[in-house]
């Protein structure tokens, strides 16, 4: 049994055929804690023996190593005393304590001792000092009750990780040493290595390892799977790296999109040309092309290959990837920063964070701008990295914060505003007029609106009712273009959408009621509010707002009383906002030429309230996160992205299904059906299998689903992270701006060539006939 239990308090468990041993450490605060071993009869569960051992082990000392080895036949308890100089062993069942002093010839103090055991009576103690490391192998002789050192692995300055394993015959013990540049196999009896394989020195800091030894005739083969300090999992077979699993992606805390310029020089040259006069720019361009002439030969050579890939549509000829080839997702966790190339899903680079104070868990915030990624760590530091390769550019301090808001600054960049736990934003200069207004949330108590240009001034605050707490506040996504300002109805009239960039949707719950409030973010006016009684507050509640509509989901749980309203089930509510209930009417603002949130009209002091149309649907499963797809100009219809935790799936519900104007209790008129695409309302919204973006995959534990537009209007990117990582691209209205794979370029070219040949052949004949015809007429 390999059991290095140095992570926990030292309570151990072992079992022989007749007895179960339970070992407890008496947590004495003063020196001289005791270890108590209790033997429990395996059949009856009654205590059969008990004895205590004096042990000088500091309870809270993390480097103390206590555990059990020896398998089922002769389990023994080992511990290292708090001075880290002596290893003590007790064969469970007897009261004798055997001990041996560690042979420290390194000249430094021992910092850490870890013991690795197998099913046999041999074990290995891995010893580390400040800069050196070695190991000692010990053997317990049961009959004579002695503990002796068999051999020592020599001292080296690269601190290696050891592990112990039982061989294929289950009777031999082997010890494996994983060093920075080699893997060595030792037997339990002699220090002569049974096998040594060189390893590529990749500078990985190994945390722990497990090994498997296979013997074939005379030679050994070793597979070692080790976990690094940064949470990555590798397997090395005979010294060669076999595979790698990025398990640290399950601990990601925050992510951000990044656009990476692969050909940075070209972009810069184009920028220079753009800013000069026509003649200078032309000369600059000619000079650039002359400079590129030496590459002409290479380019001509690659031409046939490029043409061929265009004609033959194979897996490598995905031309649409050009539209988002340079999109990266940057992910930050406690262990480091990772960049994933979106189009392939490969990790482009990974970097560890420089040391900072990790005494408590700290919130992180990422922002990407101008080729640099800035990671703010609450109260500790802010690190700036290059987005192309992850090199650290700068470090500086960071104030304490609960979240960071990115506000447009004066120089057309984004300025970070640190918001405290109480919702108070930091004072900062260099904000443009655009970024003046900010909403923050004070824990789950209230939502506060600020004006932050000169000095943060609180303009308004919104508190949900008594006994309620805020679940979530969402606002429209930063990139939310609206393609049409109104909805065209069947009879060619227009219902004007209520489009305001300053909307905040607050969901709050009281004991069993859910209240959804739509606020105007500048003045804090409540534009719309609704309450759903009898809501199960332990089920996930999610919400999203985009364009002129918002959606939220919850689990309605009315009691069986006939007076209790509502249906029992998972609800998805969709609400659209319009300026007026009548078509072709702009509502109260119709006659106005100008508008201000503070004095909207001469007749009223509050902003005009929108006309809302809602519909509710019952879904088969709860939804834990809602999001919306995004495209470059907002022309493509949107998908409502929902994560279903019960089936671990990601679906995209088309907005045309969730149209709140669907006719209730009647069939749609021909105009409604044809022009607007409405169909009859049915309360149960079954998830069509075609909506499943994750197909048959099990995407576990998604915390957030992010969407991003691409250069193509028809396509948007979707990235889900949390425990699993999933990325895909969606074309909600089919890929209308890209030639499909079935497009026959070969036949097009053949047709053009055939026509050219035909014209070339027939033209002289036609001319000749025309000329002859003129002669004949004469």
């Amino acid at each position: 049994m390999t059991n290095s239990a140095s992570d926990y308090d030292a309570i151990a468990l072992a079992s022989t055929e007749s007895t179960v041993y339970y070992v407890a450490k008496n947590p004495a605060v003063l020196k001289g804690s005791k270890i108590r071993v209790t033997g429990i009869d395996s059949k009856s569960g009654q205590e059969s023996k008990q004895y205590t051992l004096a042990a000088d082990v500091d309870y809270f000392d993390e480097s103390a190593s206590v555990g059990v080895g020896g398998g089922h036949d002769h389990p023994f308890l080992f511990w290292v005393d708090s001075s880290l100089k002596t290893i003590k062993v007790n064969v469970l069942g007897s009261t004798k304590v055997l001990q041996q002093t560690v042979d420290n010839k390194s000249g430094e103090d021992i910092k850490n001792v870890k013991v690795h055991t197998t099913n046999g009576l041999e074990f290995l103690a891995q010893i580390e000092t400040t800069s050196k490391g070695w190991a000692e192998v010990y053997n317990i002789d049961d009959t004579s009750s002695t503990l002796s050192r068999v051999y020592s692995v020599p001292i080296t300055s690269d601190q290696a990780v050891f592990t112990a394993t039982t061989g294929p015959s289950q009777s031999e013990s082997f010890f494996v040493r994983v060093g920075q540049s080699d893997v060595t196999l030792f037997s339990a009896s002699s220090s002569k290595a049974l096998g040594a394989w060189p390893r590529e020195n990749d500078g990985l800091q190994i945390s722990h390892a497990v090994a498997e030894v296979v013997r074939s005739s005379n030679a050994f083969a070793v597979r070692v799977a080790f976990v690094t300090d940064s949470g990555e999992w590798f397997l090395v077979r005979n010294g060669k790296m076999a595979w790698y699993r990025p398990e640290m992606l399950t601990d990601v805390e925050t992510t951000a999109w990044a656009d990476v310029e692969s050909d940075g020089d070209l972009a810069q040259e184009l920028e220079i040309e753009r800013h000069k006069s026509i003649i200078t720019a032309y000369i600059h361009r000619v000079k650039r092309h002359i400079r590129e002439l030496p590459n002409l030969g290479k380019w001509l050579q690659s031409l046939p290959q490029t043409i061929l890939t265009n004609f033959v549509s194979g897996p490598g000829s995905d031309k649409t990837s050009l539209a988002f080839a340079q999109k990266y997702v940057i992910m930050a966790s406690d262990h480091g920063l990772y960049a994933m190339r979106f189009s392939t899903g490969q990790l482009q680079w990974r970097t560890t964070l420089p040391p900072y104070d990790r005494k408590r868990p700290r919130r992180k915030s990422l922002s990407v701008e101008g080729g640099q990624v800035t990671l703010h760590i609450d109260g500790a530091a802010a690190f700036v990295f290059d987005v192309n390769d992850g090199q650290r550019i700068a470090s500086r301090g960071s104030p304490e914060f609960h979240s960071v808001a990115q506000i447009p600054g004066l120089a057309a960049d984004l300025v970070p505003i640190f918001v405290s736990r109480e919702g108070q934003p930091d004072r900062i200069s260099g904000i443009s007029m655009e970024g003046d207004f900010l909403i923050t949330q004070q824990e789950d108590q209230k939502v506060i609106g600020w004006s932050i240009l000169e000095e943060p001034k609180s303009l308004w605050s919104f508190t949900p009712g008594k006994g309620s707490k805020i679940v979530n506040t969402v606002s429209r996504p930063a990139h939310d273009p609206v393609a049409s300002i109104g909805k065209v109805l069947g009879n060619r009239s227009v219902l004007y959408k209520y489009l305001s960039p300053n909307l905040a949707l607050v969901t709050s719950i009281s004991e069993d009621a859910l209240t959804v409030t739509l606020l105007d973010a500048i003045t804090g006016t409540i534009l719309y509010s609704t309450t759903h009684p009898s809501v199960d507050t332990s089920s996930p509640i999610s919400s999203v707002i985009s364009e002129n509509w918002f959606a939220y989901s919850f689990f309605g749980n009315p009691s069986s009383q006939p007076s209790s309203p509502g249906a029992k089930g998972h609800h998805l509510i969709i609400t659209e906002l319009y300026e007026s209930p009548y078509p072709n009417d702009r509502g109260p603002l119709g006659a106005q030429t100008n508008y201000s949130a503070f004095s909207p009209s001469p007749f009223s002091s509050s902003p005009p309230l929108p006309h809302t149309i809602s519909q509710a649907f019952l879904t088969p499963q709860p939804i834990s996160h809602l999001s919306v797809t995004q495209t470059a100009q907002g022309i493509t219809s949107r998908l409502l992205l929902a994560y279903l935790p019960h089936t671990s799936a990601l679906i995209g519900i088309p907005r045309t299904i969730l149209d709140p104007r669907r006719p209730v209790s009647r069939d749609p008129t021909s105009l409604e059906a044809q022009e607007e695409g409405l169909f009859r309302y049915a309360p149960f919204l079954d998830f069509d299998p075609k909506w499943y973006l994750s197909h048959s995959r099990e995407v576990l534990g998604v915390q957030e689903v992010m969407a991003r537009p691409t250069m193509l209007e028809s396509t948007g990117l979707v990235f889900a992270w949390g425990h699993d990582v999933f990325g895909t691209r969606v074309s909600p209205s089919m890929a209308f701006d890209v030639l499909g794979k079935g497009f026959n370029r070969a036949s097009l070219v053949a047709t053009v060539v055939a026509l050219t040949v035909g014209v070339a052949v027939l033209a002289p004949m036609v001319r000749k006939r025309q000329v002859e015809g003129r002669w004949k007429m004469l």
Partner: protein
Amino acid sequence: MRLFSAALALVVAYLPYVHSIFSDEAYQIDYHYALIGVPRSHATFFHRPQTASPAALLYTASRNGVVGAVNPKDGSGVWRQTLFHNLTEKSESFLAPGDGVVVTASRSGVTAWDALDGRLVWHSDETFKGEPQNVVKTPRDASQSTDFVALFRESHNVVRKIDGKTGNVLWKYTDSKYTCNPIPIS
């Protein structure tokens, strides 16, 4: 004209059901990392799912409450299961190899999973309160059955022996001499 408008109505009626993914692009334009979580040193080992064949799989459990088996040849996941419902609340889990099964002890109890394909074999019924500390296999006894012993830290330390075939708790031993202090979690 009637035929035309009928045909148009048919086409428009199909409109709401737009697809956004082409079937021939599935699994080509998307990617998925099916992760287990950072492996814990006390819960990672090589184990043979079938004693007859020497092939071994690499089993691990993480603090995210996911247990899984990985093929040591290429690192691909063979199976994985979740131990508790909310993966964001991390807590420690323990793993023990058995005969053709692996047994997990987590905050939702003790469960046995088939070692080859990860199917549930049994889940121990008795409500285990508190945090798991360890789970260990007992050797084959006279009746040729291997059982499991699990140690949980409730208000006292409790040792339970669980039948290896059915998951029933055979006996329970409570260490009533000491009540447990909460462990400082770093």
